[in-house]
């Protein structure tokens, strides 16, 4: 057997269960006597609620309960501020969090107003149709700039305006940089963002067992431990009385990290009150307005360069739509603000953003979480600068990359994790070179000219990005050797398809000399492990992986100690491999891990003072700050210059996330990310009317890329280990999605020679229709 497990391209331990339909998802939970919930949701972006008549709904056969905000009494509370803002000097931050059921006023289409619980979902939906709500529609706040005008209506009447936050951060002296600049480039960009649309929508099942006095909640959350703690507090139960299980989940991407969704507050409360299990599964229609999204930023940016194209400084001012409430604090705009600096040496930076309340669905992080907005701005600015200076676009990037000997590199800003924005390690030039080589950059001009002679329009794009990953606070892991010799690993994070059952198993198997298939991983069950934060910000491999590593190292020590006592020899003479310990050079002197586990848990004699029974250890890991991954994407597209339909011909990803735990899983993460990036750049767009109605709230009209729309890609790696954790790894969950918008814009400009026609692409998403309008402003 291989002794090294880390770095092996192993197929996933969880796949047999997933592929044969034996994995438990929330909607698979069927309980005797189970009731079903449905919600009446606001049809208006903004309206006053004048009256609610639920009599007919209550009278319908099969209806068990109909609940409005009034009925919740003391239980009606705005949700908690999930992520408080970091201590940035002079900033304005005004918190307004979502409520379980709207009271007095509705603030976005899809906001829940009444909850119905019935014997079936069918009856529950029929009863929703029986409810009469008298609304007085009010003018909504939709456009970002309009929201700032003094006569704009206000999303929250108790605030002086629609500003949710106003934050200024700076590095160096931008005014001085500007004064000595040979070139100043100024541009405006808009970047719209869609919905994550995981294959599995949200869902929750709650069951109160009055004999055990225990509440069990199955929830599609990315953060089961927080949900457990929060529910116990809200419901007045002890934490031991609440078990939250986040079983297999069909995609999270960030929005399932939001806490607490109204349904998460209401379904368990109902189960307790009715003493019957209650299920609510979000349907796709609900998902489009009731699950958080991420979108709309408008940037005004200025780039100061010297005569050689070296960046002297950047000034950026942006507006960001935070939706009707902001429970996620400043995570998204801070990511945009910090990530804009990208992989470049920027001596001076002056950045301000204002987060704006609007009467649209809440904005919280979705894969990339605002990073793509920052990357788009910087990469587009460099493309414009390259043209103005007559420089090659790869060359201007190369001249500005942070040099390999400059790490750790300090950006002097505060990042979303409250730590200073410092890049731990990196070696960027080889990434760019590898991408250029793989896409055929040097030969492309000839390829393009040849195609053009045949009437075909080819374009190339190449962009760089960084990805802040692996942030705190901490995660934990418990590793145990069972009497069977198999190993268990438990952790608090939830899992939504990332391959945790395999990559964490590899980390443990590496230390314990067992087969990766013999490590059984449990995630997201608070009865098994109940410390930790959750799965978000590309942190699982880094933070949980490091905790698993720490616990496995401790168990390894215990194994060797127990075996040394058994063999009455020195630990140094022992070999741990193939699920057993033997004496070096005497392989027949061998004891299996199962036997050692039994020795460590004796039925007679005593466990020595100061030691604990069993081959078990629990370890926690909290990184001092995030680890910064980096990469470059390059692609060649062909575009039909008449219909504006692009076809991706080649796609290259070069990614550096430090130590690679499992290259197959990593490749899957990157390809999935690129697929979502392509959706974001080209297919997906939430189309709202001026009065806040979403026009395309179905998968027939909101276009996700399909297998036919995502190209095969060349995924290459460089490995620059992080010094911040024992594995040397960095996160890889979001990198695939981050640079795709900037890449599309550049490749399309190139294919259609737009700059020569005085046209630039400064917005995302880019439908063929929109692109045609940009190219034909007079229609």
């Amino acid at each position: 057997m291989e002794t090294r497990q880390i770095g092996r391209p192993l197929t996933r331990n969880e796949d047999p269960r997933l592929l044969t339909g034996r994995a438990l998802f929330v909607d698979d939970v069927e309980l005797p006597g189970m009731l079903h919930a449905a919600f009446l949701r606001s049809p208006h972006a903004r309206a006053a609620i004048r009256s609610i008549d639920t009599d007919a709904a209550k009278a319908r056969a099969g209806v068990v309960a109909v609940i409005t905000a009034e009925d919740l009494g003391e239980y009606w509370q705005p949700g908690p501020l999930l992520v408080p803002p970091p201590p940035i000097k002079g900033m304005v931050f005004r918190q307004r969090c979502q409520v379980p059921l709207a009271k007095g006023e509705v603030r976005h289409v899809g906001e829940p107003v009444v909850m119905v619980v019935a014997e079936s979902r069918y009856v529950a939906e029929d009863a929703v149709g029986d409810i009469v709500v008298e609304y007085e529609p009010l003018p909504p706040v939709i456009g970002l700039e309009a929201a700032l005008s003094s006569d704009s209506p206000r999303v929250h009447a108790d605030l002086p305006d629609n500003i949710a936050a106003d934050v200024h951060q700076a590095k160096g002296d931008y005014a001085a940089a500007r004064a000595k600049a040979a070139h100043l480039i100024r541009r405006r960009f808009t970047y719209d963002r869609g919905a994550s649309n995981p294959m599995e929508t949200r869902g929750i099942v709650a069951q109160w067992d009055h004999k055990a006095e225990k509440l069990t909640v199955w929830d599609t959350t990315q953060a089961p431990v927080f949900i457990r703690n929060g529910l116990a507090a809200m419901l007045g139960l002890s934490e031991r009385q609440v078990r939250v299980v986040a079983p297999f989940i069909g995609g999270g991407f960030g929005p399932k990290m939001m806490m607490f969704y109204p349904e998460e507050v209401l379904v368990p409360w109902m189960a307790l009150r009715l003493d019957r299990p209650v299920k609510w599964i979000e349907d796709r229609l609900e998902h489009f307005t009731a699950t958080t999204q991420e979108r709309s930023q408008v940037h005004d940016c200025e780039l100061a360069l010297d005569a050689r194209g070296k960046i002297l400084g950047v000034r950026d001012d942006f507006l960001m739509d935070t939706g009707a409430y902001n429970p996620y604090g400043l995570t998204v705009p801070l990511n945009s603000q910090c990530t804009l600096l990208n992989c470049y040496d920027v001596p001076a930076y002056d950045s301000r953003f204002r987060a704006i309340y609007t009467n649209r669905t809440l904005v919280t992080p979705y894969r990339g979480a605002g990073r793509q907005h920052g990357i788009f701005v910087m990469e587009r600015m460099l493309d414009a600068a390259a043209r103005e200076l007559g420089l090659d676009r790869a060359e201007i990037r190369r001249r500005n990359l942070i040099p390999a000997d400059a790490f750790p590199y300090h950006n002097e800003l505060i990042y979303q994790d409250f730590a200073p924005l410092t890049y731990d390690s990196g070696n960027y030039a080889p990434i760019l070179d590898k991408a250029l080589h793989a896409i055929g950059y040097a030969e492309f001009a000839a390829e393009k000219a040849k195609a053009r002679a045949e009437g075909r329009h080819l374009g190339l794009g190449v962009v760089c990005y960084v990805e802040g990953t692996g942030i705190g606070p901490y995660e934990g892991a418990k590793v145990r050797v069972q009497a069977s010799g198999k190993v268990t690993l438990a952790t608090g994070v939830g899992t939504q398809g990332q391959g945790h059952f395999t990559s964490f198993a590899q980390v443990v198997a590496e230390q314990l000399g067992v087969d990766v298939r013999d490590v059984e991983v449990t995630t997201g069950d608070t009865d098994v492990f109940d410390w930790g934060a959750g799965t978000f910000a590309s942190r699982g491999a880094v933070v949980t992986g490091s905790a698993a590593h720490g616990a496995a190292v401790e168990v390894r020590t215990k194994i060797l100690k127990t075996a040394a006592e058994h063999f009455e020899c020195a630990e140094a003479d022992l070999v741990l491999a193939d699920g057993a310990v033997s004496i070096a050079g005497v392989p027949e002197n061998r004891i299996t891990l199962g036997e050692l586990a039994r020795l460590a848990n004796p039925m007679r004699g005593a466990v020595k003072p100061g030691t604990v029974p069993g081959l078990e250890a629990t370890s926690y890991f909290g990184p001092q700050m995030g680890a910064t991954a980096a990469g470059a994407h390059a692609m060649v597209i062909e575009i039909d210059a008449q219909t504006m339909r692009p076809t991706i011909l080649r796609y290259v990803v070069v990614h550096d996330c430090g130590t690679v735990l499992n290259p197959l899983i990593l490749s899957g993460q990157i390809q999935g990310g690129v697929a979502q990036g392509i959706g974001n750049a080209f297919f997906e767009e939430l189309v709202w009317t001026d009065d806040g109605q979403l026009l395309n709230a179905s998968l027939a009209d909101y276009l996700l890329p399909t297998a036919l729309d995502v190209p095969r890609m060349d995924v290459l790696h460089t490995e620059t280990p992080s010094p911040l954790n024992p594995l040397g790894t960095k996160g890889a969950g979001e990198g695939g999605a981050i640079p795709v918008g900037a890449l599309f814009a550049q490749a399309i400009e190139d294919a259609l020679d737009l700059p020569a026609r005085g046209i630039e692409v400064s917005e995302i998403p880019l439908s063929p229709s929109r692109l045609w309008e940009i190219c034909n402003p007079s229609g």
Partner: protein
Amino acid sequence: MKPAPFDWHAPESVAEALALKARHGEDARFLAGGQSLVPAMNFRIAQPAVLVDLNRVAGLDAIAVGADGSLTIGAMARNAAIERHAGAVKSHPILAEALHEVAHPQVRNRGTLGGNLSHADPASEMPAVMLALAARFLIRSARGERQVAAAEFFLGPLTTALELDEMLAEIRLPPLPPRSGTAWLEIARRRGEYAMMGVAAVVTRDAAGICTAVRLACCSAGPTPMAAPKAAASLVGTKLTDADLAQAAALLKQEIAPTGSVQASPAYQRHLAGVIAARALATAWERAA
């Protein structure tokens, strides 16, 4: 997304189905492949109290090619069956070419031509193809039967000439004249998507290589499938040179009335119509040779 309550009837004969429809009138809908009706019911946009399921009715799904090259298709013929019908592929190749772009194989396995046409979605491919092929529809009710030309059948978005008690029973396509070529071309955002613009072109040439007849129709181009008779007429007597095609495309752009969608602005749709009409005509012309 659960439908409102409804009663379900599964008649086994046309007469029984027509009687049920006559009895329940406005409250009843025929259920064919269910690929448009059932989603609408799940969204509760449609809340019929009664479904008259046609899936067990005998004799509604025949596909037959006549000796003269004409084609009759029963309303309940599945789109996939038409797409794969060797005779139909030969007599009217544009059917399979266009059906290939209608949704996805799974949807075509269930969806029927009769359901598709009765649904009368102006973004749908087949109504435009029916106009280009000068189809006639056999319509039956308990009162009797009548025939309607495709051009008179589509009255508006999701609105047809069918009366409340009527069923679309059969689609009749006249034979294509010798030296005819057909082409369907559409631009959709994804494979299987409703088209942002689609064009059906049918051209006929004489032995000397001069164009003698053209029929053109577009989907996603107005409230109904939109024919473009002026553009078509402009090509008769020409050899469909690039200049002729450009002129026809310009005329066609004037004849349609696209309204825009979340995917495409009306101006872009009009632009696309010109581009793909020229391409479809050129392809059909080549095939007519």
